C-alpha cells in the first residue's frame, strides 16, 4: 500500500514541481501555490475516474446492456464531453474560482463570530481511531445534504429548469451523471462545500468523498439492469434503483421522478418516504417537449438554451413576453 501511495505522490509532486509550480512562479501567482498542488491531484483523480468508467463500467454495459444499441446512441456523445470537462477539472476549476471567494468570506465571517466546525471526533473520540469509520460517517453526512439538495432541484421551478438538462437524456449510460448545467453544478458545489466545512469534513476527506461518490453515481446511471441484491439495494444506490428516478412520467405515474433521489445511500429515500423498489423497466427522459429538445444539441448549445430556460423560470414575466410575441 505504501508503494502505491509513494507512486501516486511522486507522480503528483513531479507534475507539480516541473510544470505547474514553475508556471505559477513565473507569472507571480504564488497565492495559488498550495491550491495548485491540490488541483494536480484533482486532475489525476479525474483521469483515474475516466479510466474506471471507460474500461470498468463500460465492460458491464457492453456485456449486459439493458437498452440495445439504436438511433439514440448519438445522444451519448455530448455526455462524454461533460464527463471529460468535469473529471479533468475544467468545469470544477471555473466553479472553484467563482465560489472560492464566497466560501472564504462566509467561513471567515462565521469564524470571526467564534463558530468552529464541530468535528464529530470531539463528541465520539473513538471515531478518530478508525480512519475508515471516520470517512464513512462524514460520507453519510455529505450524502444526506446531497439528498436534500437533489429534492430541491425537483421542487423549485427555476432549479428544475436547470436540472431538467440532466433528466432530458433519453439514453442513460455511465456518462450521464456529469450532464449538468454549469450553473446547477455551481449551486450544488457551493452548498456542499459550505455544508462540509460546517460539519468539519477535512479537505483530504472531501476529495475522497467526492471521488468515491461520483463514481458510484456514474455507475448508478449505467445502462444495465443490475442490482446489489435485496439488502445491497437498500445499502447502496445501484442502476436499477436510480433508473426509476429518471423514468419518463406517464398518466399513471405522473410523479415517478419524485422518488429515489438518494445519490449514494438509499436510506434517505427509505426514511423520508421517497423510495420505490420494483423491477419494471421504464423508458427514461422528460415529458416536456422543450426540455426534450436538449437531446441532439452540443455542449455549448445546451448550456445556452438551458440558461435561457432558467432565466424565464426565475422571471416569469420574461416567459410571458416571449410567448406574447
Amino acid at each position: 500500500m505504501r508503494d502505491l501511495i509513494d507512486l501516486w505522490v511522486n507522480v503528483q509532486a513531479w507534475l507539480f514541481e516541473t510544470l505547474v509550480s514553475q508556471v505559477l512562479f513565473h507569472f507571480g501567482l504564488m497565492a495559488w501555490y498550495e491550491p495548485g498542488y491540490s488541483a494536480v491531484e484533482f486532475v489525476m483523480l479525474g483521469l483515474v475516474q475516466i479510466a474506471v468508467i471507460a474500461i470498468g463500467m463500460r465492460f458491464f454495459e457492453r456485456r449486459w446492456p439493458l437498452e440495445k444499441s439504436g438511433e439514440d446512441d448519438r445522444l451519448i456523445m455530448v455526455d462524454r464531453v461533460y464527463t471529460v470537462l468535469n473529471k479533468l477539472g475544467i468545469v470544477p476549476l471555473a466553479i472553484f474560482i467563482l465560489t472560492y471567494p464566497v466560501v472564504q468570506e462566509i467561513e471567515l465571517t462565521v469564524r470571526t463570530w467564534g463558530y468552529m466546525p464541530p468535528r464529530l471526533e470531539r463528541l465520539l473520540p473513538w471515531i478518530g481511531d478508525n480512519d475508515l469509520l471516520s470517512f464513512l460517517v462524514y460520507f453519510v453526512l455529505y450524502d444526506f445534504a446531497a439528498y436534500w439538495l437533489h429534492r430541491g432541484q425537483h421542487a423549485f421551478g427555476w432549479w428544475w429548469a436547470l436540472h431538467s438538462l440532466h433528466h432530458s437524456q433519453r439514453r442513460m449510460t455511465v456518462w450521464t451523471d456529469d450532464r449538468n448545467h454549469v450553473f446547477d453544478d455551481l449551486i450544488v458545489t457551493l452548498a456542499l462545500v459550505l455544508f462540509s466545512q460546517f460539519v468539519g469534513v477535512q479537505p483530504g476527506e472531501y476529495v475522497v468523498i467526492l471521488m468515491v461518490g461520483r463514481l458510484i453515481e456514474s455507475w448508478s446511471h449505467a445502462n444495465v439492469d443490475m442490482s446489489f441484491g435485496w439488502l445491497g439495494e437498500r445499502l447502496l444506490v445501484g442502476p436499477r434503483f436510480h433508473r426509476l428516478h429518471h423514468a419518463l412520467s406517464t398518466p399513471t405515474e405522473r410523479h415517478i421522478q419524485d422518488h429515489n433521489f438518494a445519490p449514494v445511500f438509499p436510506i434517505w429515500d427509505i426514511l423520508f418516504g421517497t423510495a420505490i423498489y420494483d423491477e419494471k423497466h421504464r423508458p427514461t427522459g422528460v415529458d416536456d417537449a422543450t426540455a426534450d429538445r436538449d437531446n441532439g444539441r452540443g455542449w455549448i448549445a445546451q448550456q445556452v438554451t438551458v440558461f435561457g430556460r432558467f432565466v424565464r423560470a426565475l422571471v416569469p414575466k420574461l416567459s410571458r413576453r416571449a410567448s406574447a410575441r
Partner: protein
Amino acid sequence: MNRLSFAALALSLVVGGTARADSVIILNSEEASYSILSRSTRTEVVRLPVGREPHHLILSPDGKEVLIGSTATNELLSLDIKTGERKRVVKDILDPYHLGFSPDGKWFVTAAYRLDHVDIYHADGFKLAGRIFIDGLPSHMAFDAESKTVFVTLQQSGRLAAFDLATQALKWNVPVGNAPAGVVMLPDDKRLLVALTGEDNIVVVDAKDGAVKSSLQTGKGAHNFWPKGDGRHYFLSNRVEGTVSLIETKDEPKVVGTVRIPGGPDCMDITPDGKELWVTQRFLRRVAIVDIETLKLVASIPVGKSPHGVFMLKSTATVAGAPVRAASTAGERR
C-alpha cells in the same frame, strides 16, 4: 493500527528514558494529525489526531509543553515535552497559523493568516492584549532581542510590518518584495532576513525602519529560515527550487552550501546533537534528513499528508536552558 502503534510508543516510553528525547513531532496539515517519529530508527511510531489544519508549533517559555496551532478550530493544543502526549487545549485563539513567544516569555503572538490579523497576548494566561487587523495575509514573525517589537511578513501584499508589543501599535509597514514569508532577526539585533517566496532571493532589512539594505540570490521560492545554532549560519528552504541553502551571516550574507530536497521543502529543525537537519517535504508526504556536516540528504521518512511543522522533542533538562526562539517552525501557505 493507531492503537497498536500508540501501545508501541507507550511501551518504548516506559522501557527507557532515552526514548523521551528521541522523538520528533511532525504536523500533517491536511490530515488533522501529528506524527511522532523515532530519530534513532527513523520511522513513524504513531499518528494521532489533532484539531484541524495544524501548521505550526512552538515550545512554551517554561520549556514544559509544545503548543500546536490548530488553525480551523481556533485553539492551541498542548503536548507534553517529554512524551508528546496531549495535555490541554487553549481555546479562543483565532486562526493561530504562525506562533511566537517573545524572548522574555511575556508576549505570545499569532499571525492569523486567513483572518488577516495579528494578535498579541499576554503569554501568562493567553489574555488578549490587542488585535490588529491588517490586510495581506500575515504569515511569519520574528522578535527583537529586547522583546519590544514583533516583525510580521504580509505574504500577499509583499510587505513587512513592525508592531510595538507593549502598545500593540504599528511602528512601520513597508514593501520588501514579492510574497515575503520567513523572517529572522540576526544576532546583532539590527538586521532582519526576509525570504521572498515569490522570488528567488532573500533581502536584508534594517530592523529600525524596514529599509531594504541588500538582497541575496538563493533559489526560487525562498521561504523560511532555521538557525544552525552557531549564531552565524542559517538554513533556508527554497520551495519552488526544491533546495535548502546554508547562509553565512556574519558580514554581508552569502550562500555557503546548498542541498537538493525535492517535494517543496518547508519547515526545519535540528537534532539536539546538531548533526542532522530535518526538513518537511510538503508535497511528498515525507520528512527529509540532511547530514549537516556533509550537506547530503541521507534519509526520507514517510508521514501524513502535507507535513508542515517539525519539532524535536527533548528532555526537560535539555530544553530548559535553551533560548526560546520565535516561531519554532517555518511555514508556508496552507
